[in-house]
């Protein structure tokens, strides 16, 4: 089934909850779901015999600070029918909360954990929403566009002086360097 047909089926059932279909090719075919209907639409996409999106390929969060929104993007693929589609949810950047899909696909568990860790989308109802890549006590979400790295983590500086500076300082202190500057 091509992406347009998939969207038509979903739109016929959910009406206003889905919008903004873009056909893509060779780029992605995607559409947008209203955040409060995400689980309903995704359950339909997974379980309807004509659609059967049984493989959640990827979960990506994209930060759009200018529009004040965070986007959660899901890429679905169907092994049964060999078709695929991208699905997006737009969330307010101040309160990025959306329902977790971990109850629908087990692969969502870790994929959502990673996006929570790096971009700070809170997947509500997730069984185990902890940081995945960063340490548990890390502050902030490093892949947000406005993220500023802290100067230290637990007393360890996150930057270091350039090793070149050490060499230059050594050169300056060297006896032969002093001679050069002094009177010949």
């Amino acid at each position: 089934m091509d992406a347009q047909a998939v969207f038509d089926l979903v739109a016929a059932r959910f009406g206003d909850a889905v919008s903004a279909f873009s056909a893509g090719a060779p780029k992605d075919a995607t559409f947008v779901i209203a955040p409060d209907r995400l689980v309903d639409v995704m359950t339909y996409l997974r379980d309807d015999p004509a659609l059967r999106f049984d493989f959640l390929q990827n979960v990506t969060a994209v930060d759009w600070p200018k529009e004040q929104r965070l986007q959660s993007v899901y890429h679905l693929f169907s092994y049964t029918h060999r078709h695929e589609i991208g699905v997006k949810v737009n969330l307010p950047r101040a309160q990025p909360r959306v329902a977790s899909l971990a109850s629908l696909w087990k692969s969502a568990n870790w994929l959502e954990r990673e996006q929570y860790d790096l971009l700070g989308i809170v997947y509500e109802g997730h069984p185990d929403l902890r940081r995945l890549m960063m340490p548990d006590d890390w502050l902030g979400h490093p892949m947000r566009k406005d993220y500023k790295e802290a100067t230290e983590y637990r007393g360890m500086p996150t930057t270091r002086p350039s090793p070149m500076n050490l060499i230059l300082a050594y050169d300056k202190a060297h006896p032969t360097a002093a001679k050069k500057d002094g009177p010949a």
Partner: protein
Amino acid sequence: MSELVLATEGGDEMTLNMGPQHPSTHGVIRFIIKTDGEIIREAEPDVGYLHRAIEHIAEKCSYEGFMPYTDRVDYVAAMTANHVWAEAVERLGALPVPPRAHYLRVVSDELSRIASHCIALGAMAMDVGAITPFPYCLREREYVNDLMEELCGARLTYNYHRVGGVGWDLTDIWRDKVLRFCDHFDGVIEEFNRLITYNPIFIKRLARLAAVSTAEAIDFGLVGANLRATGFAYDLRADRPYALYDKILPRISWQTPVGKGEVGEVGDAWDRFWVRVEEWRWSVKIIREALAQIQETPHEFWTPPKKLKPKGEATARVEAARGDMHCYVVGDGGTNAYRARFRTGSFNAIAMVREKSAGLMVADLVALIASLDIVAPEIDR
């Protein structure tokens, strides 16, 4: 055996730490293991020790400039990571790729896959106690590395693919060398099977170990050889062809190798091993066919993009050595990617370890990790 388990139920649970610098975890991964004697109650993977924020680096350099970093996504089979990035950007910018480049990508990908499976299979045999196959495999991998060095100047992190093509053309001498290697490698596979694959001790060690069903594998998002070992024939090269695989595979009467449960259950650790051995065979056939077809293509191997400032979003999927690698790239009309995302085979596989490890023996956890062909940097990126 079951009596032994019952006798200590709820009793002597112990929490053990395996890793992060454990030789059998295939890189820097930590497992927090709750055991009851030799039986694992739960093994929780703790990843992130190799997180280098490669996706973030993609936002800081140009589309072409990011190519060397993709090598580090999966440094055991760097070529396929190159490929998925090149393809994603080409889709995003709707860029043309000359046919010769596609063939060169196929040849280099398959050589990379052979080298990667050498590590996977050799290391797996070593992890379960057979030391000999590992140096044999490393010897073969050195031949591939030599070929790669001659093709693109690097032995591990190739940086060979380009947006719009590949970096260098092949020479006739190199082509002959690859064909000679293919002839040699056919014999190696037979030797390897005699040495380890059908070795009775090895079979006893792996048969019926941590069998995964197809439904479970799809739910957890297992891809590549791990998925095919469950008896489910899905290979991107055949079922969703890219880079002229659709011209090559029909000519070699391709059949996707799937796990058959020859020595135990379908989808057990031995099946995962065996599917990779079969993939070696098919890779060799693909290389031969691609090198035959490449002779008829025009010599152009790279169409460098002009003013690459794409807008929109695109995905690419490539059958990497560890399965379906998914790359999602968003462009906002600038010279850099606005957002890049890699979903790799190891990431989904490691997420499964927690569920599959309950009830295994401690020594079998190592066999499970090895049979899933997990590479730590590919999990963390």
